[in-house]
């Protein structure tokens, strides 16, 4: 397990990260979500050892990162930056061979061959890096990140700029990798993460906004909205002391707990108003909505 404890990063007067703490459990895919400039990349660079934190501590298996030699620590973390490192003049296999040398990997040939199979690069092995499509560049970047068989895989926006076909392929690859590695995977598009992640960390303006599984976050969120639609026009909207929105001539939405007898209240009220109900739907906010609300509340 990797733990990020009260990490701050300050550039001059700008706080890029403000005492951010979260955990990445073993063999879990964690989505790091936030709008552009939220501090996702900074967070990942610190975790990968490419950047120093101003304060705070990083733990791997409850041991402070300082207790590891830089060599041992960095071999436990595989990092794919936002733009995958690809030497354009070198072929795919030469690119991987270079990174294997950088990480002083033994049995280099065997490992590269396994990685090529695992990441689906077999058809482009001899192609120069410069001629690869965006999807294959990401695959090569992921293969590079896996070269030291790391415990934790850090993928910074691995899905950005991919076409729908490539998106599906890379998502599947990440899901497969999550079975063997802990994966921290960032995006500013929450819907890109929803099909892949087990756990979410929401960042905004360098601060941790929320974290947990999809269910935990939904439970932490505000009360659900009840959408009520009528066959006839509403003369007067209800006043239950609860927030309402989307007030239209034949429908409205009210924020109310189901357990509090909300359906009964609405039925009674509509009877009194001579309104016949067309449909009543409980709308639990999805992650995207919660994330938007969390950001707008700040």
């Amino acid at each position, binding site marked *: 397990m990797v733990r990020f404890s009260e990490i701050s*990063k300050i*550039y001059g007067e700008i706080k890029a990260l403000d005492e951010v703490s979260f955990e990445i459990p073993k063999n879990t895919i964690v989505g790091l979500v936030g709008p552009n400039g939220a501090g996702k990349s900074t967070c990942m*660079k610190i975790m*990968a*050892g*490419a*950047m*120093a934190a101003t304060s705070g501590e990083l733990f791997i298996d409850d041991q402070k990162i300082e207790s590891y030699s*830089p*060599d041992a620590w*960095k*071999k436990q*973390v595989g*990092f794919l*930056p936002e*733009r*995958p*490192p*690809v*030497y*354009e*003049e*070198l072929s795919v296999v030469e690119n991987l061979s*270079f*990174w294997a*040398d*950088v*990480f*002083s990997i033994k049995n280099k040939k065997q490992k590269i061959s396994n990685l090529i199979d695992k990441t689906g690069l077999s058809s482009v092995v001899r192609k120069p*890096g410069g001629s690869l499509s965006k999807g294959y560049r990401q695959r090569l970047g992921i293969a*590079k990140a896996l070269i030291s068989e790391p415990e934790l895989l850090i993928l910074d926006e691995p899905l950005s700029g991919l076409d729908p076909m490539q998106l599906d392929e890379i998502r599947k690859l990440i899901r497969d990798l999550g079975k063997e590695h802990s994966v921290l995977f960032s995006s500013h598009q929450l819907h890109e993460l929803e099909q892949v992640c087990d756990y979410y960390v929401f960042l905004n303006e360098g601060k941790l906004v929320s974290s947990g599984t999809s269910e935990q976050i939904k439970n932490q969120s505000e009360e659900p909205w009840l959408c009520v639609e009528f066959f006839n026009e509403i003369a007067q909207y209800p006043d239950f002391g609860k927030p309402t929105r989307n007030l239209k001539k034949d429908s409205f939405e009210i924020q109310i707990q189901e357990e509090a007898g909300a359906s009964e209240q609405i039925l009674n009220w509509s009877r009194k108003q001579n309104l016949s109900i067309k449909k009543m739907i409980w709308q639990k906010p999805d992650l995207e909505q919660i994330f938007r609300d969390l950001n707008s509340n700040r």
Partner: protein
Amino acid sequence: MNLAILKKDLKLSLFRPSLLFLFSLVSLYLGVQYFYQLGLFSQMVQKSYSFGGTSLLENLWAPYFGQINMILLFVSPFVVSKAFGEEQRQDAMLSLLASPLSSWQIVLQKFLGGWIQLLLLCSLVFLFPVFSLVMFKAPYLPELFSGYLALILLSAFYTAIALFAGSLFKSFLMSGIFSVLLNIMTWSIGIFFRDLIQFERFDWVESLWIGKHLTNLFVANISLNSIYFFIAGVFFFLFLSYQMIEQVERG
């Protein structure tokens, strides 16, 4: 010792057509220059029916080594200063920083890569003076060795400067221009103190001037001070490059 970056840099640069073209151009130019000077020198020797080691050094080799210096001054920035910029362009710098390699290892391997390229550039032009040794059957091997030593140290010095310039700017052109300016500055400081303001205590300034040490070595006056000067200069600029990587890249 992990030399992955050095091996990769040499593999990528030595087969780059632009570099091969540059090597050929420099070798051709210096070859023509050398043999032209050699012709003039032969005529001079025939007229005086004698020549000494000093004259061979002073009239042929020292000016020739001076020309190589001028070439290195302008060529080294454009060969070496893109060392870091190239990693940025290929989006590899962040991954290198996240690798087990330390910033010192990255800087030293980049330095060695650049230095080897400059030495290869010099290797062919180093051969030309050997012709005159054979031609005149002159036993001046130590003098020639001293000139070679000067050029080896000088290319290391220019490499370190260019590497530092490369760590300051992401643009090849900017780092190249800045590196040329730094090279010129290392020369002009001494000239400024000596000739322009005729500084009275020039001895002190002179010991920090590249011109003095290089001239000493070109005329076979090998002193440890001159060797220390170049080594200290190399480490000074390597240290600055290291600081740039630590402060700017690692934040």
